[in-house]
């Protein structure tokens, strides 16, 4: 079973992603902030990581930078999931090493399709 790590400081946000992806047949791991996200990623080596950008401590940008330095995560798809509508955020995210960019609120099918595409 493929493992997906979802990092979001809001439990409801994590649970939504968990509910959608578990139904699609993935094992979902959770992290409540950036630091935990890096730790869980190193322990569990998920096949795909979904990161909220705005998190206390280390934000999504910081996490992706950290993980991309680690050769274990060189090819791991990492999706940004953010409520930010600021211009330039998407460009910055892609430049820092994100593989995909989805804005909140999500359309469930869009999330399903993106995850499926990246894990195919």
């Amino acid at each position: 079973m493929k493992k997906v790590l979802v990092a979001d400081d809001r439990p409801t946000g994590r649970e939504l992603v968990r509910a959608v992806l578990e139904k699609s047949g993935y094992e979902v791991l959770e992290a409540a902030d950036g630091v935990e996200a890096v730790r869980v990623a190193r322990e569990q080596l998920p096949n795909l990581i979904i990161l909220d950008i705005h998190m206390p401590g280390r934000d999504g940008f910081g996490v992706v930078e950290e993980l991309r330095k680690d050769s274990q995560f060189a090819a791991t798809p990492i999706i940004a999931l953010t409520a930010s509508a600021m211009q330039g955020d998407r460009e910055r995210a892609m430049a820092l090493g994100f593989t995909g960019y989805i804005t909140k609120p999500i359309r469930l099918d869009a999330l399903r399709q993106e995850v499926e595409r990246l894990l195919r």
Partner: protein
Amino acid sequence: MPSHHPGEVLRALLEAAPLGIIALDTRGCVKLWSRGAEHTLGWTEAEVLNRPPPMELHLPEDSGSEQDLRALTRHGTAVDIRVRTAPWRDAAGSIQGTVVFLSDLTTQHVMERELQDVMAQEKEARTAIHAERRFRELLEAAPDAIIEVDREGRIVLLNRVTETLFGYQRDELLGQRVEFLIPEDVRNMHVHHRGQYWDHPQTRPMGSGLSLQGRRKDGSRFPVEISLSPVKSEDGFRVTAVIRDTTERKQAEDNLRRIQERYTRELSLANQELQQRNREIERADRLKSEFLASMSHELRTPLHTIIGFSELLGEELEGVLNEKQKRFVNHIHKDSLHLLELINDVLDLSKIEAGRVELRSETFDAAGAVEEVLASIRPQALAKSIQIEVAGPKILLYADRVRLKQILYNLLSNAVKFTPEGGRIGIASAIVDGFGEFSISDTGIGIPKEEQESVFDKFYQVGATTKGVREGTGLGLAITRRLVEEHGGAIRVESEPGVGSRFTFTIPLDPAGESESVA
């Protein structure tokens, strides 16, 4: 008293007369040859007496008439003479011969010239007198004090203004040193400067850069401006000084300077305030956009889960819902989507109003953009069996393609929203006055005349007067108008309740312009 023989008197007369007088007898022999004739023609009376005249003499036929002729003198030179004849009669009245009067025209010419010279001199003298009078008039008409000073600095001439300006009578000033008219403390310096003037005597303002002062009879001082000119007269070199009282001008200048200084000070203060205010506005602007970004983020975050979970529930993957539950979940989902739309619109409008929308203009064919918008509009139209007709030429626009699509989407989704089942929507495009013009018409409920002006206002909703349709944010048309205007275009509406509406807007053409104007 001694008596004179008439002959002696006559003789004396003949000798003295400036005219040449010759008397010829009937045979043409000279009987009299006056000293004047001798003077003009050279021969003495003794040489010609009782002989025909030694030179040719064409006498005029009629006595009394004059004739100018040229005769040879004894010295062989030619002389121009004027001849006049008269009959010579004796006491009984019988003709004895002819008397010839001749005048030397050369002499006369000389005299005429002399006369002309005299007249010219007289005229010159008169002109000089006239000039002198004009000069006096000018001198007195001048608004400035004018004085003339000789080499020793004594005043030799002055006009009336000088008297009134300095408060002296003419007699008190004539012959005085010019230093008399300046304050005591600078008199010595003036004597020194006056001496130096003769090294470079030329017309120039005096003491340029210094503030000069005059001194009145009562000892008071006043600011003056003086210009000096050297004058050469028969009495030697002199200096004319034109003295202008600058009291009023100085006051005006001082006033002006004070006003300018105050104005500059106030302007600088106002500038500082303006800069301060600008900084405050910039700060407020930054805070506002930070607030907008953060508010948008904070609102979307819970909406994300509301929309997500309601959609999830509606999918019934976690369990089958009964009809009522399904309807309720659907309500939550729809209204949360509406809330999202509202948040997006508010944010968008705020950005537009803050001037934060940067148009990313490019050249593109309008038809492509229309098709893309129709792709998302058609399903909605199909659901209400609304027909959509598109007509128009190929139009190359220079605009922000995404924003144009937003404009078209707003107008078309409104058209679908307000058009009843089975209606029609038309999209017509044309090129008008350098703009691409797009008309979105529908057979919808229309807009009452009195509301047509306010449809572009924020939060205006036709819902106020129409039943059932009330699902927009009330911001769509406000945003649409702002976007059209950002492009430099304009938007207008024509509508008739119950018949339909037509929204027409313009967008700039591609300046390179290869658009066809044929439909």
